[in-house]
């Protein structure tokens, strides 16, 4: 499984890529493989305020609905509408076009408590 080196990871299988004060959030390749065919995605509304660990989005496979948690606290500044139209992007390109939302970090130090790629690899048994 691909675990890009430039991202941080939550134990609940979200990734975040931080640029300046903004982070882009999605789910990992491991998570999409576990979820199987994703047929519905509901990214959070722009302006929504989220705490680290709070439910940010819902994705649903044919079989089950899964909550997606925000790895950090902050305010949603962008939502990926492409995944609403084509939820399969979460399966086919989880680290790219399948991103879910962008968040302006209110507490950038939270990033330090997230897993680095090596720790996340260990978690998923890679």
């Amino acid at each position, binding site marked *: 499984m691909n675990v890009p080196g430039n991202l941080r990871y939550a134990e609940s299988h979200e990734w975040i890529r931080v640029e300046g004060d903004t982070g882009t959030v999605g789910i990992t390749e491991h998570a999409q493989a576990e979820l199987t065919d994703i047929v519905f995605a509901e990214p959070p509304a722009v302006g929504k305020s989220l705490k680290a660990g709070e439910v940010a989005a819902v994705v*649903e496979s*044919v079989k089950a609905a899964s909550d997606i948690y925000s790895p950090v606290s902050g305010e949603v500044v962008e939502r990926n509408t492409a995944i609403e139209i084509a939820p399969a992007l979460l399966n086919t390109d989880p680290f790219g076009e399948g991103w879910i939302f962008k968040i302006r970090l209110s507490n950038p130090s939270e990033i330090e408590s997230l897993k680095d790629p090596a720790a996340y690899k260990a978690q998923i048994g890679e």
Partner: protein
Amino acid sequence: MRTPLFEAHLVAGGRMVDFAGWEMPVQYSGILDEHQAVRESSGVFDVSHMGEFFVSGAWGAAWLDSLLTNNVASLDRGHACYSLMLNERGGVIDDLIVCRLGGEEFLLVVNASMIAEDAGWMKARLREGVVFENRSADFAALAVQGPAAGEIFGALFGRAMPAERNRVLEIGEDFVVTTGYTGEKGFEWIMPSAEATESWRRVLEAGAKPCGLGARDTLRLEMGYPLNGSDLSPDQTPLEAGLGIFVDFTKPSFVGKEALVAQKASGVPRRLCALKVMEKSPPMRPHYPVFLDGARVAETTSGAYSPSLGCGIAMACLPVEFARPGQEAAIEVRGKKFRACVHKKPLYQKAT
């Protein structure tokens, strides 16, 4: 519990889940891919967990007619029919397939979750002149489904698949029945458990894609076929479930008949309906609230995302005055209502 194909499922990449106490594959390559294979070419399902009962003896047909809603005595040899088994209140204990074999023998195929209960119910009502055997543990079964199922049949048995549905062939110790739960052409192949692995291998070699319970559910729901335990219950009659055509009221008696006759006279209060979501929505699931004219009247009994239609689909038991095609309804998912419409079954029909 495990079927004889447990190891074969792991080899094929099956993702195993619990189903009525059985470790069964929910999917292999993916539900969407497997669903499409069955709609466009062919797929194979392990249905070894289902139960096989044998009934023989001079009074076998008459006894089955006293327990089942459909007419068993009028069934020709080598033919099968779908039937319900009811309790005294007219509620559905199980839905099953009755196969009339050669001689005075019948094979019943029942739901995996209901084997013990069905067998107990039937044994408690046994009479002289009837031999009942629950041989579920002795048999494995494969369901081969899809427009290319005939080619698989030819490769396996060296003869043409009967074009007619509900035909029963006895081939050696095996039974092959042209039935299924997907709306596609196909057959169900019941064999001694020891043959399961080799049969599975041959079906895959002939070109069928391994399919799991996930695709089985989306395929049957697109057809509006009920699933016992979800859409059928001991508190609901077959008239409410829209299965009246499988009830033969001309039979002098069968368990539950009086209750059905009384319900017919007083009016069926509700009917199991197929619903199609008319806007973009999350996949439907069981137990979502259903609204009519703003009032909550039911909950979904089954629900899914329909891979063939690309929208949410569901079943729900609605008050009879609303149980007509075109009736608008709303289904609530996480506090948000989505527009739906009662649809004639099947929900999905092949372009011809």
